């Protein structure tokens, strides 16, 4: 199977294994699960600092056909159309193979031109994720998913020669094409990512998404009208 894309799913903690089993029934070969945290959109709980929910992120390498199939089956079995049931999206991550590498061209423009949604990834020092989500919300984003990670290590001069591993927060925000640049600029300027060592921000094109809040509201509008 040629892997043309990665199929991402974000669900509540504990459900990723079930989703993975379903994906394997559809023909996926493997899957990787990361632990993350989601945000809850509630002014009240946010104000008192208690908006947090545990999530799992599942990544399945898939071909284009498989990814379409996964979108259909998984969003149906796990009712992604209902709120808080999960989100799925496909990013055109090509699996790199040595033999093919000569022919392959990494084409920036086409993938970006076709995408209807974008995934904004911000990587900052641990603890600044809240600011990031705050400014993303201010620019029109709904919410984000947070993964804890680390940067490469640096040695220091403490009593024990510890290699301190800088803890990093990775924030994933999914949004539609229109809002992308506004959110990106906002985060970039609010968090001062232009300064060295403050973090980076980049976007990945999404070729297909299901279960997004925006999609739901559109459907709902269509239903009532």
């Amino acid at each position, binding site marked *: 199977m040629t892997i043309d894309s990665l199929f991402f799913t974000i669900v509540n903690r504990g459900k990723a294994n079930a989703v993975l089993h379903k994906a394997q029934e559809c023909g996926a070969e493997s899957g990787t699960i990361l632990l993350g945290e989601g945000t809850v959109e509630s002014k009240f709980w946010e104000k008192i600092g208690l908006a947090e929910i545990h999530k799992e992120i599942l990544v399945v390498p898939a071909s284009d056909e498989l990814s379409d199939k996964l979108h259909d089956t998984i969003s149906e079995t796990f009712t992604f159309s209902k709120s808080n049931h999960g989100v799925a999206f496909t990013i055109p991550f090509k699996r*790199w193979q040595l033999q093919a590498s000569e022919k392959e061209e990494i084409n920036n423009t086409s993938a970006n031109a076709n995408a209807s949604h974008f995934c904004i990834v911000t990587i900052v020092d641990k603890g600044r994720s809240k600011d990031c989500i705050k400014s993303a919300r201010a620019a029109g984003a709904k919410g984000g998913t947070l993964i804890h990670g*680390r940067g490469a290590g*640096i040695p220091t001069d403490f009593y024990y020669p510890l290699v301190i591993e800088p803890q990093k927060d990775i924030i994933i925000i999914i949004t539609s094409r229109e809002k992308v640049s506004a959110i*990106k600029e906002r985060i970039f300027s609010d968090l001062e990512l232009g300064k060295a060592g403050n973090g980076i921000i980049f976007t990945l094109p999404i070729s297909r998404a299901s279960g997004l809040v925006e999609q739901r509201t559109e459907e709902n509008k269509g239903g009532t009208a």
Partner: protein
Amino acid sequence: MSLLFEKTKEVLRTLLPVFIIVLLLCFTIVDVETDVLVRFIVGSIMLLLGLAVFLWGVDLSMNPIGEHMSLEVATSKTPIKIAILSFLLGFLITVAEPDLLILGSQVEEASGGTLGASIIVYMVSIGVGVMISLGVFRLLRDKPSFSMFMAITYGVIFILTPFVAEEFLAISFDASGATTGALTTPFVLAISLGLSKIKGGKNAEENSFGLVGVMSSGPILAVMLMSILSGQKNIQGEVVEYVIAEGVLRPIINKLPGVFIESVIALLPIIVLFFIFNFIKFKIPKDELLGIINGLILTLIGLTIFLTGVYSGFMDMGRIIGVELGKMSPWLLIGIGFILGLIVVLVEPAVHVLGEQIEEVTSGHIPISLIRGTLSIGVGIAIALSMVRIVVPAVKLWYFLIPGFLIAMILSFKSDPVFVGIAYDAGGVASGPMTATFVLAFAQGAATIIDTADVLVDGFGVIAMVAMAPVFSIMILGTVFRHKRIEYPTIEKKPVVSSHLVEEVNMDHVCIMAIVNRGLAEKVVDVARQSGAKGATIMRGRCTAEHQKVLLPIINIELQPEKEIIWFITGTHVSKPIANSLLNDPLLNQDGEIMVFISPTEAMVRSFTTINVTNDADQAT
């Protein structure tokens, strides 16, 4: 809010079996007054709500506080500061532990006043302080190995054992149970996790556990030394007549203020220490501080409700079940003891906290249900054996304690390293407030009704058994696990000294994502750097693939191997060489496990550099 809902569901799942079994007993063989039964039901509801709120609060407050404090300890520039800080942490949280004061006054009574309660409290606290600071030194140096460290500690305990009277042996092990209370355990777990996160390196996962185990050995040593030095051999004293409270609401309301004050006192040293340091050093931003304060309030409220529910609803119930079953048949006592042990331990607050931490640290690689199951079986057997000890006077406590710890010690060298820490922690974690009230009351109830048993002697020692059994059972699990786990070559990290700013203007970027087995991320970063990559971010996850499924025997639980996911953002011109060099590297490729994915990306990177050394060092100090 969803987090609270999640916690409530989790607590409910563990509480329901206890609730159902106790109700079953009440309606079949045990004759219980309506008052006590109603109080048990009310107590269960309080326990459910209280514990859920408590766990939520711990999540929000203890974990960040632990992280900040451990950063402060780890980044000390002199060994003296490490020693003093970690000693203070251990000493202060123990001195304020309400359970310890109760134990102290019990011992004062039992020793006929030779050993004062306050001396015991201080000695035990010093014991904990010293052990914690030794444990922190070990963790930071990563030498000797944790198994060796614990083997030496318990070796000293075993050498002292023959000089200590049996009664004091029981008290000393009970003291270790008393110090690992509902609040101290989550806090020490958080410190341990924080330290190992900062330290990083290839043993980070193993180092995330074990400090609770280290801490609980402190009181054992302290009480044993005291007993030897004071020459105290015999326990005397009267058993206080046990009165079962009457009414439903009165006992609950009467208990509440006392419990609240106890909780405040227990929480106080952590709060004071944290705010002093926050004032001088951390200067946490207001938002985060607000979250921590809210978390502390929730912790306090939750703990108060939880403990009140347990004291007023569960203690009398445990006592009555013990007495009634004791009247009927010793076999029933042993059997029901086993079942109660099996299910009660899962309601312990610290068991929930430990489970969550295991999930966090291993990214779900070690199934929590497996740890919980092993813990249950261990404690079930411990309670059953305690009942045997009450029924048959010839069976002594050390028949189980010494061989149990000895075998666990030997297994620790054969076991999967992560499990060694978890196992020693589990001892302190399992002997929490539920054991100290419900199970202890059950055992004492049984001891009063059986003529050959001595309430004083047999009452002590139950907690010691509960603290020993999980160490033993989880160590066995770890030994099995090791043979099932795939071993990866781990790469010791070379410190990367860096670097200068690199201006990159207006260029196309590519996102490279590599998935490798745990331990290889540093190698990936090295290889990629040589081909022109700059920064990298590493995440952890677990992976399943059809061709590499690993199942544990009999119970058929799937083990999902741990992975590291590395993200690079690079210029388009270097992306091919990086990807190719990753795929060409012999070490990364030897088991064909590396996967490299490439996607175009639009990055807003005006300049990027490997992490700025001075910048981070400033933050850390």
